[in-house]
């Protein structure tokens, strides 16, 4: 009595997903869908993808038993170390898969949207490796906040276009990428950065990052001889979360937890928690949960983590939420930053602030699961990215940048 595979042929996860885009893009989406389906069945494509993951990206990533953190949290914590991948996050899996697809479709140019710059850097990386022209759209606010990532993209040969309209952040960069795509669709693949957008993107991105869960499941069985009690991940658009969840969905005994960016707290209205603090609507090509006002105008999101600072979420998460198969909860900036420090100090790992949301969430459910199970729970946490990119933000948050600035000039004199 297995449930039908989702999405359906038109990209629907129940009432979510689908295609809410201008007609001009439908042909390109159909072509992408067909190319993806044929690539999926093509052993040569799959071998090339696996080869790049293994020999270029450093996948499979480790599943690491975090002993000191486990002691602190009262749970056995296994970290899926996606932070160790090339470019420092799970995103490399998606960009390699999509860049290979672009090659397969004979498209010499890729475009991408980026918030903090992580997906932009990953896209520029894959484009350099596979000899594709790359244009990255980035909100002007973000190009200012993330100047180092702008430099990285340019070093890798990409063109970075600052987006000056709307709120000048990720959602506007996505709008601008869609506008570019409508105009250049014959020669251009839109390398979308998360498991959202019009069909087939949510399915395709999920499948390219789905190795996270497949590996974690096998590693878990090998290391502890059974499946975990829970899997935890942060959710912005939701690609790392769907990547680790997907393989565990049929395992009914494994609880799935997605932690959204609660910002200052969902009750303050300053957050990026689309599922726990939003409502159902249509944005960026798919029906899902989003932050919107009474008129259906998108509300700007807020999070200390630029990677989670997005007012929508992938449609499969909306579906998993409605069906109850996964549980979504908000984690505030303060809770995430506290977990950030805890991981730094107990394990010597500086996580991305995004991933710190998953850690903070794991700390919360550890207590609950302990009571519920009457024993120490085992939780796999997706450590989706490393924190190098966040040093400035975290340094400012903790007020430790001033000390550095004071010390460094002194050394020179």
């Amino acid at each position: 009595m297995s449930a039908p595979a989702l999405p359906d042929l038109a990209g629907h996860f129940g009432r979510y997903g689908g295609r809410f885009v201008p007609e001009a893009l439908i042909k390109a989406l159909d072509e992408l869908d067909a190319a993806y389906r044929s690539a999926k069945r093509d052993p040569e494509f799959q071998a090339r993808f696996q080869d790049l993951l293994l020999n270029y990206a450093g996948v499979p990533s480790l599943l690491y038993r975090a002993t000191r953190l486990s002691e602190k949290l009262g749970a056995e914590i296994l970290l899926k170390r996606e932070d160790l991948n090339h470019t420092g996050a799970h995103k490399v899996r998606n960009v390699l898969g999509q860049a290979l697809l672009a090659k397969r479709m004979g498209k010499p140019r890729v475009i991408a949207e980026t918030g903090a710059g992580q997906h932009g850097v990953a896209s520029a990386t894959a484009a350099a490796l596979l000899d594709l022209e790359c244009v990255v759209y980035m909100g002007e606010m973000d190009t200012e906040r993330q100047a180092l990532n702008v430099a990285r993209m340019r070093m890798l040969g990409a063109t970075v276009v600052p987006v000056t309209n709307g709120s000048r952040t990720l959602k506007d960069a996505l709008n601008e990428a869609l506008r570019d795509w409508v105009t250049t669709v014959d020669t251009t693949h839109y390398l979308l950065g998360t498991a959202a957008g019009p069909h087939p993107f949510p399915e395709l991105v999920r499948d390219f990052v789905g190795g996270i869960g497949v590996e974690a499941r096998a590693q878990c069985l090998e290391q502890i001889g059974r499946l975990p009690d829970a899997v935890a991940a942060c959710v912005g658009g939701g690609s790392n979360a769907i990547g680790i969840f997907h393989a565990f969905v049929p395992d009914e005994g494994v609880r799935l937890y997605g932690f959204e960016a609660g910002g200052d707290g969902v009750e303050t209205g300053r957050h990026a928690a689309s599922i726990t603090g939003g409502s159902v609507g249509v944005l960026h090509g798919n029906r899902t949960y989003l932050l919107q006002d009474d008129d259906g105008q998108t509300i700007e999101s807020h999070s200390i983590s630029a990677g989670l600072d997005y007012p929508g979420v992938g449609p499969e998460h909306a579906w998993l939420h409605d069906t109850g198969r996964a549980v979504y909860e908000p984690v505030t900036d303060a809770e995430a930053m506290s977990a950030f420090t805890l991981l730094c100090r107990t394990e010597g790992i500086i996580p991305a602030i995004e991933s710190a949301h998953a850690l903070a969430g794991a700390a919360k459910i550890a207590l609950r699961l302990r009571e519920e199970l009457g024993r120490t729970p085992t939780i796999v946490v997706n450590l989706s990215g490393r924190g190098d990119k966040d040093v400035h933000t975290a340094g400012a948050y903790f007020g430790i940048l001033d000390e550095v600035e004071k010390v460094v000039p002194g050394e020179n004199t």
Partner: protein
Amino acid sequence: MSIAETFAKAKAENRSVLVGCMPAGFPTVDHSIEQMIAMHEAGCDVIEVELPYSDPVMDGPVIQKASDIALANGVRTKDTLKIIDAVSSAGATVVLMTYWNPIEKYGVDAFARDLAAAGATGLITPDLIPDEAAEWIAASDAHRIDRTFLLAPSSTDERIRMTLENCRGFVYATALMGVTGARTSVSSQAPELVARIRAIDPELPVGVGLGVGNGRQAAEVAAFADGVIVGSALIRCVLEAPDRAAGLGNLRALSAELAEGVRTPR
């Protein structure tokens, strides 16, 4: 006048219909009403009211800017309905263009009902394709609102056929692969797309939009299309004017020039 009547009348006069677009509430609710009535008086056969939206992916910089101004000045969905009421009461044939989410949020059936009550005859949906439109098709049938979906040069014949079957009133052919905004020349893809549409359905009027900005271009498009849709160039009259009177004057002048364009003998 209904959309069908408007197109029939123009056909009898051996000319094209001029559709002029203006965002609701740009720069304010009252000013936008005044602008739309001026466009109507100066020769726009149909006023296409655009509902300002935070994420208009099908629109170029001019409409984006005008929408941002309208939203910043606090325009709401109910204001757009009020504007439609005022402009249709002044005798104009009004259609609404809107991205889908504001309708979904309002409630699809309630929106169709209130849109009809306000006097709009049709709705253009730039990001709703017939494949996803079951609820809208039912609501628009129930409340007798014409449905305009978009077609593009990239549309396959199969999609053209399916889209035409779901349209009522007229179909919107996007002249080129791109977003709204005036261009220096009319797209060469447009006549071909219109011919492909007519080969499948010779009856349904075809409006062509994207890139038309002056009387000469309007005449060029009118030579092969039933309707000429102009947005950004009209909005720019207001956006770039030194003062309100000049803006309205420019708007009337361009509307008249475009109206003359669509009457150029074919």
